[in-house]
Structure formats: structure tokens, C-alpha cells
């Protein structure tokens, strides 16, 4: 018989012994599979969370449908509205729109405001507010519609109203529920509890559009009205400006040109803005990397311990096999084959359970932080999880089997 059929015969026998060993203790095998599945889940969910955070940021900016972002610093999506460092923003927006390579530019302001259907200051709730010129199709209203600011309200060179112009507001559905408001109701809005009763707005729509972007339950109102409520109409403050680049213009080149023209500002294309937002949070990045690293290391350590235990539990049986003449390689093979089966089953269970658990976590994330689909395990993440289960499982089982074969001596058959 040649070497190849010899090897095949042994391999078949090794698999047979391994499967028999696994079937002998179905409870132990199930627990081992579960442990590997948990290790895989730890990796896929945490890696999926990392991917989801980046994707959420990118989508937030992409859904804003703006090519260029202008701010004094990288735009902070968590900003509560206390920082609106840009002044004279409508003038700047008009300057930008006058350029041939820019089709449209608009400022956006973020403030914290107090809202409520009852003017009693004690009943008002604090919420982040976004000031924009108009709503658009992306708002996908659950009820009602959006608002549009009259063009004259932004006419350059004209004195601007110190009072709200449209008195219209769009609420996040959870805000609407919280303050018990629906379309057509009156809502009091102010940057303090004392000023809110002075500004009565009409709820015109319900949408969570900016909530998804900012990660909190947000109200949206016309920029001029928000500036009026905040008392910044005179200085025309905003958090940032966004601009749309002409179809035939190079977005990067326009951004570079604007950066030169406005040295006091940070000018970034939308993809750089995402990088800046993330890069501006070394703690977040470090924490995310640490979590993923811990998940991988934890998964590996768990797998190592698991297979060391599996091998140790079979030490007497392995010693008996060694005594009747089976080689260390063959013994290692039987443990490794168990590793393959456990790793494959655990990996598959982990991978199959990932979408289910990701969905559950996303529901929790959506309810507490307004982020939809925060955990997004990509195909790469699934491959990573399965690879850890299989490759690490097999390698560790092979080493554990080899060591068990070495230490499974006749001593383990005595006493």
C-alpha cells in the first residue's frame, strides 16, 4: 500500500474516533460549541459595532447630501448647540453660492432648547435643536410635512427679523410623544425656561431625520427662527456651513480652494469630515480598538482553554491509545479533528446568531441613542469570526492534542 492510501486510511480513522468522542458526551460537546459560538459572537458583534459606527457617521454626512463642510473645527455630531462659532454665516453662504463651482451653500446651527406644549417653565424639556433653511425629501415624515423659509428672510444686505418668521417646527417622534404634541399643536421653544413661553411654534411634521445624524432626540426648525430664539440673529451664528459642488467641478479641488480662501475655517470634503470626526476622538478610537482587540484575544484565550480542557479530559483515553501503539501525530489528529468539528459548528452557530443579536442590539441602540443599525457586521466580519473559530480552533486543538499525546503517559492509566 502506498503512502497516500495509508494516510487516507488513518485520516478516516482519526475522524471516526474524533466524532465518536464528541458523540459520547453530547452535553460537553454542546457546551464546547456554545463557547466557540460566544467567542465568535464577541468578535463579530464588536467588529460589527466598529464598522457600524463609521458607517453611521458616513451615512449621516452622505444623507445630508453635502459635498463640503466648513467649520471652525471638525463638526461634532454630538455638539449640543452651545458652540456656534461661525458668524455672518448667511453672508458667507451667499459668497460661496456666487462661485461657479458651488451650486448651493447653507449654514446649519445647533442649539439646546427647552420645548413643551405647556408654557409653564417647569414642564419644559431640554432637547437639541437643528436650524436649517428648509426640510427635504430625506426627512421621510411620519406625520405632517416640513417647512420652507421665505427667500426674503435670507436676502443678503437686508435687515433680518429679530423674531421668528415661520414659527414652524418638526419634532422627533419620541419628542412628540414625550411632550404629547402632534401636528398642528402649539409648542413653546426657547434657549432657556424663562424665554420659551415667549416663542410659540406650530408643529408641522414628525421626523427623526436629524436624530439619526446626531444620535439624540432632536427638533428641527428654520435657521432664522432658531437664531431669533437664541438671540444670535445679529451675529448670524451657526455651527457649520455646507456646500454642494457643481457636477463638473472637482470636489477635492474646490475644498482646497475654499480652504485657501477662508483660512480661518476648516474646509473638508465629506469623507475627510468623517475621518476628522473620528480622528478627533482618540479615546473613542482607542476604546473601540481595545474592545475589538479584547474580543479577539478573549476569543482566542477561550478557545485555547476550551481545547486544552477537551484534551485533558481525554488524557487517560489518549494514554491508552498511545500504549496500544498509536502515534502522537494520530492522537493529535483525533483532538484536532474534534477541534475542527467544534470550531466549525461553533463558528456557524456564532455567525448565524450574529444577525439576530445584531438586530436586537440595534433595537436597543435605536431606543436609547436614536442610532439605527449601529451594529453592522459586514461579510469581512463574518469571515473573521469564522476564521477565528476554525483556524484558531484547529491550531489550538492540534497543539493541545500534540501536548496531550506527549504527556498522556502510562502513569495516567494507573492508580
Amino acid at each position: 500500500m502506498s503512502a497516500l492510501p495509508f494516510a487516507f486510511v488513518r485520516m478516516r480513522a482519526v475522524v471516526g474516533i474524533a466524532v465518536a468522542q464528541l458523540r459520547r458526551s453530547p452535553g460537553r460537546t454542546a457546551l464546547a460549541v456554545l463557547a466557540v459560538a460566544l467567542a465568535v459572537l464577541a468578535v463579530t458583534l464588536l467588529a460589527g459595532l466598529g464598522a457600524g459606527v463609521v458607517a453611521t457617521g458616513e451615512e449621516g454626512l452622505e444623507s445630508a447630501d453635502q459635498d463640503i463642510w466648513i467649520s471652525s473645527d471638525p463638526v461634532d455630531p454630538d455638539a449640543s448647540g452651545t458652540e456656534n462659532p461661525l458668524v455672518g454665516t448667511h453672508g458667507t453662504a451667499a459668497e460661496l453660492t456666487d462661485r461657479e463651482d458651488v451650486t448651493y451653500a447653507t449654514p446649519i446651527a445647533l442649539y439646546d432648547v427647552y420645548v413643551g406644549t405647556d408654557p409653564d417653565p417647569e414642564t419644559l424639556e431640554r432637547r437639541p435643536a437643528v436650524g436649517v433653511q428648509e426640510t427635504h425629501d430625506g426627512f421621510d415624515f411620519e406625520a405632517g410635512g416640513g417647512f420652507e423659509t421665505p427667500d426674503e428672510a435670507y436676502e443678503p444686505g437686508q435687515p433680518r427679523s429679530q423674531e421668528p418668521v415661520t414659527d414652524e417646527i418638526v419634532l422627533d417622534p419620541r419628542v412628540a410623544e414625550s411632550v404629547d404634541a402632534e401636528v398642528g399643536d402649539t409648542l413653546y421653544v426657547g434657549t432657556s425656561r424663562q424665554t420659551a413661553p415667549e416663542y410659540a411654534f406650530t408643529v408641522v411634521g414628525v421626523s427623526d431625520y436629524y436624530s439619526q445624524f446626531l444620535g439624540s432626540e432632536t427638533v428641527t426648525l428654520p435657521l432664522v427662527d432658531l437664531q431669533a430664539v437664541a438671540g444670535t440673529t445679529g451675529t448670524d451664528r451657526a455651527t457649520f456651513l455646507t456646500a454642494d459642488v457643481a457636477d463638473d467641478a472637482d470636489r477635492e479641488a474646490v475644498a482646497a480652494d475654499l480652504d485657501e480662501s477662508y483660512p480661518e475655517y476648516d474646509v473638508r470634503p465629506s469623507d475627510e469630515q468623517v475621518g476628522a470626526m473620528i480622528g478627533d476622538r482618540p479615546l473613542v478610537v482607542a476604546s473601540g480598538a481595545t474592545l475589538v482587540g479584547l474580543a479577539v484575544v478573549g476569543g482566542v484565550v477561550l478557545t485555547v482553554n476550551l481545547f486544552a480542557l477537551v484534551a485533558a479530559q481525554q488524557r487517560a483515553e489518549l494514554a491508552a491509545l498511545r500504549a496500544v501503539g498509536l502515534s502522537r501525530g494520530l492522537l493529535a489528529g483525533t483532538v484536532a479533528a474534534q477541534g475542527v468539528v467544534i470550531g466549525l459548528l461553533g463558528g456557524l452557530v456564532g455567525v448565524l446568531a450574529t444577525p439576530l443579536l445584531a438586530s436586537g442590539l440595534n433595537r436597543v441602540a435605536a431606543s436609547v441613542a436614536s442610532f439605527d443599525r449601529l451594529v453592522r457586521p459586514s461579510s469581512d466580519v463574518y469571515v473573521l469570526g469564522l476564521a477565528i473559530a476554525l483556524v484558531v480552533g484547529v491550531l489550538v486543538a492540534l497543539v493541545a492534542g500534540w501536548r496531550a499525546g506527549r504527556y498522556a503517559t502510562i502513569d495516567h492509566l494507573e492508580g
Partner: protein
Amino acid sequence: MIDLSLRRTASTSASASTGPSRAESETGAGTEARTETEGNTNRHDGTAAVRLESVSHEYGTGGGRLRSGRDRTVTALEDVSLAVGAGEVVGLKGPSGSGKSTILHAVAGLLAPTEGRVDLLGTDLTDRSERERTRLRRNHVGIVFQRFHLLPSLSARANVALPLVQTGVGRSTRRERATELLEAVGLDDRITHLPSELSGGECQRVAIARALATDPDVIVADEPTGELDTTTGASVLELLTDAGRDGNRAVLVASHDDATLAVADRVVPLRDGRVVSDGY
């Protein structure tokens, strides 16, 4: 009488020939091994199949990775010389700790004694690597343990066939051989049973069948009746002695029980690792 010679045919034997070429090919020892084995390994010529010459062995108790500061050793064998011929059944008698098991382990190549020479079919095991000793054990030595040590997840037939796995014998041939052996030990109606479904005596019969799977030249049995009642023990001993005498195999049986050793052609008493007398 049950025929336990059960000589393997060419088709069931991984290395069909016996004698010098067999040992030589297994150890790769070349001319030297051939010279050693010639004149010694024929199980029919009455010469020693197993020979121990001035064997001493010490177990270390302080040599682990975590040293205690002083290494202590225990002398298990001291200047033991012994020979067992083909077809001969030799009993090793002595109390616990007298060195019986150590002799069996040395003969099976499970340990390398610290001093002396252990010849198995004319091949000195003491200068062989662990891998070579394993190979020699696989093809020439059958082991029967007191506690059977069957794989609980495998059927009786699969347990018997296990030693043949390493030799690359095909599945159907392994099953055929195992069935033949189980029938020979009277377990033809227990072939597919798991060890947990067998009595102690039946388990030991399976273990004996497993020991015979590779058609060994030597069988070592360590307290083979220690877990069995008198009647069952007697039938197991009969199987062992038949396997030795009918198959012209050297059989070493270690026990502290006189009744067990009564079946032996010769009994070698041991005390404190020494041979008390040449045998009786």
C-alpha cells in the same frame, strides 16, 4: 479449545513477514538490527523473545519544571535479569511497588530503563527513540491492563481494531480482523456493543482481543484479573495462556495473586525491585 493463535494472513498484516526483516524495517536500524535479531526472533525456535539484562530503573520525583530544590528518585528496578521464550507464560509475582509493572512497561517500550538492556525479539529497546519503541510495541507487543482502558465511545469491534489504524490497514480488513478476534474470545454477540454495555469480564476479553489485533509476538498483562471475580478471571487467564501457547507468543503476567499465577509456566518473584529467585 478456542483457537487464539489467530495468525494474520498476508492481507491483514501491515508488515506481513516476521523475524529480522520485520524489526529492521520498523526501526530502520539497518544491518546492526538485523544481526541482533537474527537467531533470536523466531517465536518457534524456543529462544528468548524477551530478555532483560541487569535492568535498573529509577523514577525521578523532583525533576519537573517546578523543582522543589532537591531531586529525589525512587528505585523501581535493581539489576533485574529475565528471559521469556516464545510460547512461554511467565508470571511476575510481588506486592505493590515490587517492580512488576515497571518490568512490563520496559518490555513494552513504554519506558526506557535507566540502566541495563531490554531486548525485544533481539532488538535492544534501550537505544531506540520513543517513536521507534512505539512502532515496535505496535507490531510486536500486546498490552492488557487491569482496568481494560477501552475507548468508551467506540464499539467492541472498533476498540479491537484500533491498533490496526496506525498500520494503515483498510477499514473493512480491520473490521474483519476485529470480528474474527471477538469471535475467538467468545464475544461474537457483543461485537457492536459499547464498553458500558459489557460486563467486566467481557471488557477484559475485548482488551485481550485488542492486544492480539496486530498479531504480537509478546503479550504483557498487568493484573488482568484484578477487576474480575474468580470464575471470570479464570476464563480470562485461559484466553491469555491460550493466546501465548497456541500462538507461540511470549506472555508476561504480573499479579500479586497466586491463583492468577498458577497458570504460568514459570513464576518470577520480585521484592523491592529485585528478582528474588529465577523462578519456580
